[in-house]
């Protein structure tokens, strides 16, 4: 009973505070507390805001809207702004609260409808559009409501007396900040700005940038400076810069430019809006910000991908979090989203013609690959090569490169006899697959009558669709693969993203794990093949527990790992009693540690940095690399400095090189085990100079039965920092 009460209280706690925090683009309770406190600098405003939030969230619960969405404050923040706006304009009377209640309901409904509409049709956030619409409606309605007294002018409760004289530019700035919550006083503004600083330095920087650029622009246009003091002009500039600089766009040098430009656009819109609505008595509120923001974000969707300026396509957080996510995810996994293609064959084949190839992969059809099989001497045939059956690739299974639907099948073209090519039926026998609305793939030159799928069939990655042949424009048996944006035969090719694969230049060169790019001409390539031993060594089924005896130089303790899943379906390992958490994923034949939270002196930390990325293909001496977040290795103060500069420059990079050692006997407490180990060298490198350059090493032994059974981390000076042994 008490527990249920506790759950309810926690829910209301989250929903209320996060509604306040959402206005400032953050998800932190701290921001919510500060904002709440600021609104109560004027008791009337505070009360009104609170009532609006509680009303909106309460109504949402009543109408059974999505619980988790209510908790994030999504349904509350527009109502909060409405409450503040109404309290700003009207006296504190009973009718005000009636209006707030009804207004909150309206806001809720508008929020829900607009969110659904905009996320489906244009994939844009609603920002504070419901607030603007409903406030205007209420203001308009209020003109005929006589019991709502119009509050002549807002007077600060605290007054204009300040202990310290503040330069007037700052005063203007802080007043503008305060106006975000309808409290244009220096104290309110300072507190809000402080809360921004505490949560995200970048947000604060963008706010200042937006205001400064906007002011300069307006002064440049010769606009009277009094406009800056009126209404929410400054608010619009700041919100626009924050949104376009780091919240919905990944911070980068160009996002700063975009933020500044956005501020100018916003100023323009504001001026125009003032001229339009000035006479009607309706204030602009945050309309310029919304219009600028939505326009820019929508238009940006139609650019070609550019790594220097990218929209946030994942769940947005603070600019630092967005940047961190984009940088580490992109560096580690390449693009996020989109179809990833595997090779359409078993075993190791050779690329006989790659992108921008010498023969036919040119111009709009550049992104294509021809694959065939070579023996170790580099020949594609045995004996004399005068018969099709002499060719190693002939009649080998050809597989679907990704999940999809069959949209076209050509199955009747005869294989060319050697020495002839068929230019009339260029493609020969082919299968065209549709993977996504603008992603199709073609596999061509297959053997006649060998295609075993029909139009309309759904195939999975790796399903056999036919056999390799020599049909069409084919000199010797090979498979042609390309990805294009449409199903027709002359469609231009696209550059596909490949799943991780192994590549080597020749049979006596070592295999290399390729993570971002595609296969090159004359390279021998193969898909990652899940090795059962590694799959079971790195299997973390939900509920599994591990127990370790952990030693450091000073302490010894027992650490327990429990595997659970979070609400979004991501697996994570919780370390008890240290409280650390590591989020993991096992897909595309790779084990990955997505992120780690917690103290760095735990066995789980060693796993997070020593086995951050492990392909589940065992090849002795295989070497690969990964990128780790700098925050694992730097102090809080240093982290703050790194974060601020990060959009422009990476002050510290952390790269790791991982390698399999061969299966060998490893002594363990209570016996020994035959297992393979992953040894990792982690280089922490500052961008300037050698100060701070450190190399950490780790060795993790992976037993197919017990999993990670021994973990060891070596500090840069060579001593063992942490050592953990599994307790069977």
């Amino acid at each position, binding site marked *: 009973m008490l527990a249920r009460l506790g759950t309810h209280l926690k829910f209301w706690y989250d929903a209320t505070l996060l509604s306040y925090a959402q206005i400032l683009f953050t998800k932190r309770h701290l921001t919510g507390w500060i904002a709440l406190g600021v609104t109560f600098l004027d008791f009337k405003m505070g009360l009104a805001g609170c009532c609006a939030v509680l009303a909106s969230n309460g109504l949402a619960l009543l109408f059974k809207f999505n619980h988790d969405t209510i908790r994030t404050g999504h349904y509350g923040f527009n109502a909060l702004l409405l409450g503040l706006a109404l309290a700003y304009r009207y006296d504190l009377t009973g009718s005000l609260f009636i209006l707030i209640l009804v207004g909150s309901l309206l806001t809720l409904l508008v929020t829900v409808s607009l969110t659904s509409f905009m996320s489906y049709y244009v994939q844009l956030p609603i920002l504070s559009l419901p607030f603007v619409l409903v406030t205007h409606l209420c203001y308009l309605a209020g003109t005929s409501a006589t019991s709502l007294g119009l509050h002549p002018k807002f007077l600060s409760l605290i007054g204009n007396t300040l202990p310290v004289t503040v330069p007037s530019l700052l005063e203007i700035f802080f007043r503008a900040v305060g106006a975000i919550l309808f409290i244009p006083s220096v104290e309110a503004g300072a507190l809000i700005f402080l809360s921004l600083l505490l949560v995200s330095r970048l947000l604060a920087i963008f706010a200042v940038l937006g205001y400064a650029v906007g002011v300069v622009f307006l002064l440049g246009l010769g606009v009277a400076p009094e406009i800056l003091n009126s209404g929410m002009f400054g608010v619009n500039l700041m919100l626009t810069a924050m949104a376009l600089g780091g919240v919905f766009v990944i911070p980068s040098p160009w996002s700063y430019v975009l933020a500044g430009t956005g501020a100018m656009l916003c100023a323009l819109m504001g001026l125009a809006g003032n001229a339009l609505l000035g006479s009607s008595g309706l204030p602009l509120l945050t309309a310029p910000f919304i219009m600028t923001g939505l326009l820019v974000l929508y238009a940006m969707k139609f650019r070609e991908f550019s790594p220097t300026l990218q929209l946030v396509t994942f769940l947005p957080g603070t600019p630092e979090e967005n940047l961190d996510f984009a940088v580490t995810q992109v560096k580690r996994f390449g693009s996020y989203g989109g179809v990833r293609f595997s090779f359409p064959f078993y075993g*190791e*084949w050779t690329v006989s013609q790659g992108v921008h190839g010498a023969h036919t992969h040119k111009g709009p059809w550049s992104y294509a690959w021809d694959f065939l099989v070579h023996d170790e001497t580099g020949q594609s045939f045995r004996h004399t090569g005068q018969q099709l059956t002499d060719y190693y690739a002939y009649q080998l299974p050809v597989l679907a490169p990704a999940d999809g639907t069959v949209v076209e099948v050509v199955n009747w073209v005869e294989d060319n006899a050697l020495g002839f090519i068929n230019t009339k039926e260029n493609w020969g026998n082919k299968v065209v697959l549709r993977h996504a609305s603008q992603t199709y793939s073609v596999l061509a030159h297959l053997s006649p009558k060998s295609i075993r799928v029909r139009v309309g069939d759904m195939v999975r990655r790796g399903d056999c669709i036919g056999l390799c042949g020599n049909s069409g424009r084919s000199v010797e048996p090979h498979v042609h693969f390309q990805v294009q944006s449409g199903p027709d035969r002359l469609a231009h090719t696209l550059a596909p993203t490949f799943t991780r694969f192994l590549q080597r230049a020749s049979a006596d060169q070592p295999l290399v794990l390729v993570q971002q790019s595609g296969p090159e001409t004359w390279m021998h390539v193969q898909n990652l093949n899940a090795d059962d031993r590694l799959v079971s060594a790195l299997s973390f089924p939900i509920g599994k527990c591990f127990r370790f005896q952990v030693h450091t130089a000073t302490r010894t303790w027992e650490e327990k790992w429990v595997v659970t899943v979070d609400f979004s379906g991501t697996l994570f390992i919780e370390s008890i009693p240290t409280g650390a958490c590591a989020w993991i994923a096992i897909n595309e034949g790779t084990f990955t540690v997505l992120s780690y939270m917690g103290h760095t002196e735990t066995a789980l930390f060693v796993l997070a940095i020593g086995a951050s990325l492990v392909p589940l293909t065992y090849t002795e001496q295989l070497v690969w690399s990964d990128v780790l977040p700098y925050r694992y290795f730097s102090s809080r103060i240093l982290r703050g400095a790194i974060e601020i500069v990060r959009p422009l420059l990476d002050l510290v990079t952390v790269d790791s090189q991982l390698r399999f050692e061969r299966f060998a006997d490893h002594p363990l407490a209570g016996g020994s085990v035959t297992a393979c180990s992953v040894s990792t060298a982690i280089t922490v490198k500052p961008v300037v100079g050698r100060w701070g350059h450190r190399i950490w090493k780790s060795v993790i032994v992976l037993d197919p039965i017990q999993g990670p059974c021994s973990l060891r981390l070596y500090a840069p000076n060579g001593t063992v920092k942490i050592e953990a042994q599994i307790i069977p």
Partner: protein
Amino acid sequence: MKERYERPIIQPQQPYQMNPFGRTAALEAMTAIESVAVSELVAQYGSPLFVFSERSLRHQYRAARRAFTVRYPKVQFAWSYKTNYLQSICAVFHQEGAWAEVVSEFEYAMARRQGIAGPHIIFNGPFKSKAALCRAVTEGAIINLDCTDELETMLDIADDLGRPLTVGFRVNLDAGLPQSWNRFGFNLENGEARDAVRLAVESGKLIVRGLHCHVGTFILDPEVYRRQAKKLTVFTQEIEADFGIELTYLDLGGGFASTNTLQAQYLAGEQITPSFDQYAEAICSELLALQSRPAGFPLLILESGRALVDEAGSLIATVVATKPLPIGMRGVVLDVGLNALYTATWYRHQVIPAQSFSGFMEESVVYGPLCMNIDVVRDTVMLPPLGLGDRVLIKPVGAYNTSQWMQWIQARPAVVLISEQGEVDLIRERETIEDLAHRERVPSRLGQSGAS
């Protein structure tokens, strides 16, 4: 330089008819192995001498692996130890990535001595003692049970250790071979194999992880493998569905033929031995039916031995005597025979002169040096007239000879390995009588006999 003397020969000529035994140009002298002169090898290491080519070993392994990996996604080769025990040869295959397949406790110890980890050893064979099984269990080896007695022993071990054990079962089935090997493992067709799996599952102490099936040796028809693979695929699906188990491997054994020619075979081996690709296509096309299992494809394990090592081995021998046989043929006696060339009883090995010759041939019988009437290396072969001290090359002899050779009448010869760069390494010394005697314990009353 003194010209080599070649003995004159007399051959009957049939007037007005073609002489089928006239001058033949089909045989060419082979004066070097992998560009190392035979004369140099003999000068340094003596005769007889086994010579292995590392390039051939690696090439065969890679060709076999390639043939299977482009047709099936999960392939593992396990080197069949009984084919060749030489540590250097085993090491080459392990370097290339092969596991170890052993058929006795004796061979198991060899594999461990070679440094192979327990989980990479496949323990087969009709005789596995309890001690051997215990060791295999402790070290995590893959155990394929051959009979119900072994099954009982494994249940006992499971009780002793107090934990469930993983096992595989050897099955025998009819794959269309005239002689089916039904003495090994559990029969598929009469339900014995299914019963064994059921016993294991119902005991609750054994986890069935795989099936092992090795249908024959020197199989020249890939269709045999197709039938075997198909039956195993169907059986796998049946037992997985009926008993709720999940197999992780299917071991299809070995038995691929080399280019040797069987005694009773009409056509030469090079003409009819199937390629690895033909064997692979027969096996893999059937196994692809297992794609729809929830666990995906099982691991295909292949225990090839002969096909990987036979062509890599040659034997240099020296002619020690020639005699005209009363039956009209020429008898050629070499310094090595069945004592080190057991496979001469199975195959018609090539016997190639290692020095140039005129081209006139005579019908010869090649004997070994043993005082045993059946010590015949080749019965009826056309050879040029050979004299004392002439060298011949006998090939392919890489499989089974250096594991089945006898310490009898002649010392076992030395073995060398020629690396891919052409360097020659001695990998096994020629034996002496000490190798024979050091294991003997003579009671003192029998002392040293002889004149007192």
